[in-house]
């Protein structure tokens, strides 16, 4: 069995107090084996689902208000309902191409509990009549691929996947597919392009979302790993039990990865809408405070694409709506904490550089814009900035994502609102995501930018 001698089992996961839905098996050293899975209630959800009609399974998921965990937070049950009736075959594509900076819940789920994910895939396939499932795992995650491959082999052997599953008329294949290093492939249409053997460039949508026209032109459901990992629990315990956790609009628990300047960084499973950012950072059950008890300067609430938050927003609950109303997003549940020692320009440059490197090059505003953003930020950081550079940065940002957008918390401070959710001149949100760190950093820490730009005095021109 594949192991890594250098990294302990489930490294980074913190088994804190509180309800556990998706991470319940992580504490076992052999959590990835079929034996452990079956001993701890694995595939019970599938058996439960098989006793119902597919439409009843779909209804159960819809009434659980299971929100998509990939970033957009769209209810999975409603997304499933977008498939045009009577168009066969339909496919399931599992989005395991987790590369958003700060995020690493899916890797843990794939490495530590692949059977839970496979079971989730099977439940989705059963509910919707999907003919084949493709599990797209990020290329760099070698251990996750090995664990899933081993788990699939075990499951095929035990007749849990494949032909006539558990002796019923339900037959579906789950195929492990793996990527080759491209952040953009996490976007669902780019994921489908990549799965078709093409370059991972997003498709234009609307009008046709993958649920209508997806893989090979057929209706396709694209779901995140964590979303599907919730299904077995919902099938066993029911939607009503599921809704007892979390808030009314965001039921259930989520895995949050908190990294950066905190005492105990880690991946924590906690209820949505109940816990606040402040609990996560300072709570004894979570990160136990800032490293060295330093002051909090800023934090990224939902992955690199999200506009930054500042100390006055720490009391917001971990729930999509209030975070969205405050002008950012909960995204993929990746929280990066930065203390007073952080250089805002450096942090901004690093995030923008990521988007510049990962731009697929399909849309001009993103391809050229992100590169120029990086170039200008780089020269400001290196001390070669020119007067007017900051305005130029904002202007480039405005060309990728025209703003401003009303209704954000910034207005309370007398500042212009950050354009979020971003308006975009591009096909996908990658380009507009690069704007978030710039607008956040410039509006709040303008003085840091100005301090780095040398003040030049005009050189007198003498006639020769």
């Amino acid at each position: 069995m594949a192991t890594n001698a250098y990294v302990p089992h489930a490294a980074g996961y913190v088994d804190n107090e509180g309800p556990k839905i998706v991470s319940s098996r992580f504490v076992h050293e052999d959590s990835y084996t079929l034996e452990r899975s079956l001993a701890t209630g694995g595939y019970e959800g599938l058996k439960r689902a098989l006793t119902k009609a597919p439409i009843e399974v779909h209804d159960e998921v819809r009434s659980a208000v299971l929100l998509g965990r990939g970033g957009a937070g769209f209810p999975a049950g409603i997304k499933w309902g977008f498939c045009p009736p009577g168009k066969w075959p339909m496919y399931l594509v599992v989005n395991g191409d987790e590369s958003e900076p700060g995020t690493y819940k899916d890797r843990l789920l794939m490495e530590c509990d692949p059977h839970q994910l496979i079971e989730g895939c099977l439940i989705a396939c059963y509910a919707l009549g999907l003919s084949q499932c493709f599990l797209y795992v990020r290329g760099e995650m070698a251990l996750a691929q090995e664990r899933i491959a081993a788990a699939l082999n075990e499951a095929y052997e035990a007749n849990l996947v494949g032909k006539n599953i558990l002796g019923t008329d339900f037959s579906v294949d789950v195929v492990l597919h793996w990527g080759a290093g491209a952040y953009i492939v996490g976007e669902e249409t780019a994921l489908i392009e990549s799965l078709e053997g093409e370059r991972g460039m997003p498709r234009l949508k609307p009008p046709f979302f993958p649920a209508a026209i997806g893989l090979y032109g057929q209706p396709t459901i694209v779901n995140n790993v964590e979303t599907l990992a919730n299904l077995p629990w919902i099938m066993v315990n029911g939607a009503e039990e599921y809704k007892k956790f979390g808030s009314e609009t965001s039921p259930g628990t989520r895995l949050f990865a908190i990294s950066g300047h905190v005492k105990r960084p880690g991946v924590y499973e906690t209820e949505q809408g109940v816990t606040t950012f402040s609990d996560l950072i300072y709570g004894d059950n979570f990160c136990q405070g800032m490293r060295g008890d330093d002051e909090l300067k800023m934090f990224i609430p939902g992955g690199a694409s999200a506009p930054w938050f500042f100390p006055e927003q720490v009391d917001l609950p971990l729930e999509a709506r209030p975070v969205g109303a405050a002008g950012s997003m909960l995204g993929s549940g990746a929280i990066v904490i930065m203390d007073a020692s952080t250089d805002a320009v450096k942090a901004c440059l690093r995030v923008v550089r990521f988007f510049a490197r990962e731009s697929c090059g399909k849309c001009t505003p993103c391809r050229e814009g992100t590169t120029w953003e990086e170039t200008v930020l780089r020269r400001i950081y290196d001390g070669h900035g020119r007067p007017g550079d900051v305005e130029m940065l904002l202007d480039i940002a405005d060309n990728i994502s025209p703003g401003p957008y009303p209704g954000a918390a910034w207005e309370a401070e007398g500042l212009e609102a950050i354009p979020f959710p971003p308006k975009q001149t591009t096909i996908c949100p990658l380009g507009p995501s690069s704007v978030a760190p710039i607008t956040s950093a410039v509006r709040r820490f303008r003085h840091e930018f100005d301090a780095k730009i040398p003040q030049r005095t005009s050189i007198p021109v003498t006639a020769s």
Partner: protein
Amino acid sequence: MARFTPENLVLAQEILSRYPRKKSAVIPLLHLAQEQDGYVTNDAMANIAELAEVTAAEVIGTCTFYEMFKTHPVGKYVINVCTNISCQLLGGEELLEHLEETLEIRSGSTTADGLFTIEDYECLAACTEAPCMQVNYRYFHRISNDEVDEVIADLRSGKLADTIPDHGTLQRVRQTIPADKLAGVHAPETVVDAPAWMSRNEPVLAARAAAEAAAKAAEAVEEKKAD
């Protein structure tokens, strides 16, 4: 040389058979080629084009888009150091600098003995374990400069050969689907009907329709009474 060996050709055919369209197998086949030769050769791409029934240009187009495919020889061990935001905050860049000094190469290049390649990489999804790095896509968490030196020494002496395979090998465990357990690969043009188990919906839908009709009828009666 550099086309698929007979053993790999068998594997390639097995991979191809899992997809409704052969072109979908291009990325897994490129990985297989990289596993065989350490990088993706032109001959391999031509071979893949034949197998997947696409043009060689399409294979190159796909291959060069993805960061993990190397079209030139790289070191036996490719070291990816994460310098993205979470790792940067906790010393990812310093770790990269230390590696560059130790191996006396810049990131993106390979040592003269062909053993190591260093890459300045984007987020490796181990953010709470910063700074992190991968050697041939195997993780090292919260690694200090001294520990890096140790790992380099161990790699040189071959001590880690069991843990870390040569560059190109991702999965030492492969998915194999026994022929008798395969549910079937469904190409879009071959399927017109709903899968068998969807017929289980019929009684439920009929019952629901009947309940709805009954409710409507009851409503009509109520309305009549009201009139």
